[in-house]
């Protein structure tokens, strides 16, 4: 694991990516958890951790996707049970992360990353302009959820077209609406362990 200083040096913030730019992160179905406090399903903090190789978590830039004439929904192609989280660049900077473009991977990898340091340390957001193949549609499941974490205490989720700051909280999936999160079971989240 790199130090916060090294991380900031290696993945320096790019101020040309404006605070209003929406960063999109796919959320796998296994990362939705039931939050009794909020009364809804939302992404686990695990959905926003470093990649397995220690690089920052990756996200898509909605502005680049749109500049290329595409729809942000394309990132959901082939991921029918995945959710989509939208974070404003300004929001992640407020959480002591940097937004770092990843040009070398833009034409190679369909996903990229934002990587966070350990709790309380600076985080880095790596972005790419790479967009997946033309997508069918967003499943909708992950479009109105919340994430809560040490640094990412609240992640704004919503449709990519929502103006930044329009909502920093979202709305709602009731218990039972996301039951199929487990690879082999279809059960709710409560009960005896």
């Amino acid at each position, binding site marked *: 694991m790199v130090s916060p200083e090294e991380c900031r040096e290696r993945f320096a913030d790019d101020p040309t990516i404006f605070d209003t730019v929406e960063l999109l992160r*796919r959320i*796998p179905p*296994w*990362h939705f*958890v*039931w*939050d*009794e*406090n*909020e009364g809804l399903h939302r992404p*686990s*903090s*695990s959905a926003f*951790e*470093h*990649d*397995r*190789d220690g690089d920052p978590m*990756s996200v898509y830039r909605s502005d680049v996707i749109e500049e290329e004439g595409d729809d942000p929904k394309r990132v959901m192609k082939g*991921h029918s049970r*995945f959710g989509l989280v939208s974070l404003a660049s300004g929001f992640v900077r407020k959480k002591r992360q940097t937004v770092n473009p990843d040009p070398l991977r833009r034409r190679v990898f*369909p*996903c990229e*990353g934002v990587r966070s340091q350990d*709790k309380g340390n600076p985080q880095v957001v790596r972005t790419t302009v790479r967009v997946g193949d033309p997508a069918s549609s967003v499943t909708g499941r992950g479009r109105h959820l919340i994430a*809560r974490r*040490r640094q990412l205490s609240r992640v704004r989720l919503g449709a990519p077209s929502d103006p930044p700051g329009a909502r920093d909280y979202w709305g709602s999936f009731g218990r039972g609406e996301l039951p199929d999160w*487990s*690879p*082999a*079971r279809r*059960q709710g*989240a*409560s*009960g*005896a*362990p």
Partner: protein
Amino acid sequence: MEAICRARDLAALSRGWNSCDAHRVSDQAITGSIQFLLGAALDIPTLVAPSVVPTVRGGVQLEWHRAGMDMEIGFEAGIPASWYAEDRETGESREALVAGQRDRILRWLRRASR
């Protein structure tokens, strides 16, 4: 039992389950989480089942978000288990390795299981 089954089921996830390059969930992480749950259930008969989620590095994270509490306990192969808890009302929070913290963790779990 449900949470234990969910932890066990994570073993079925193949590498790349997050659409990128996530590790398979390790047996060590699954075993660690199950052992923790079994031990906690003995001490807290009313223990509420957690959400059980995989991590990209092949770990397992147990999560409770109820009774005004947020609590996470992470298990990964080759890395000491760690935990995090926060009381939403008071803002009180704790974050530490699991080792040597059993009593403290159980106190938080009791609060989360009310």
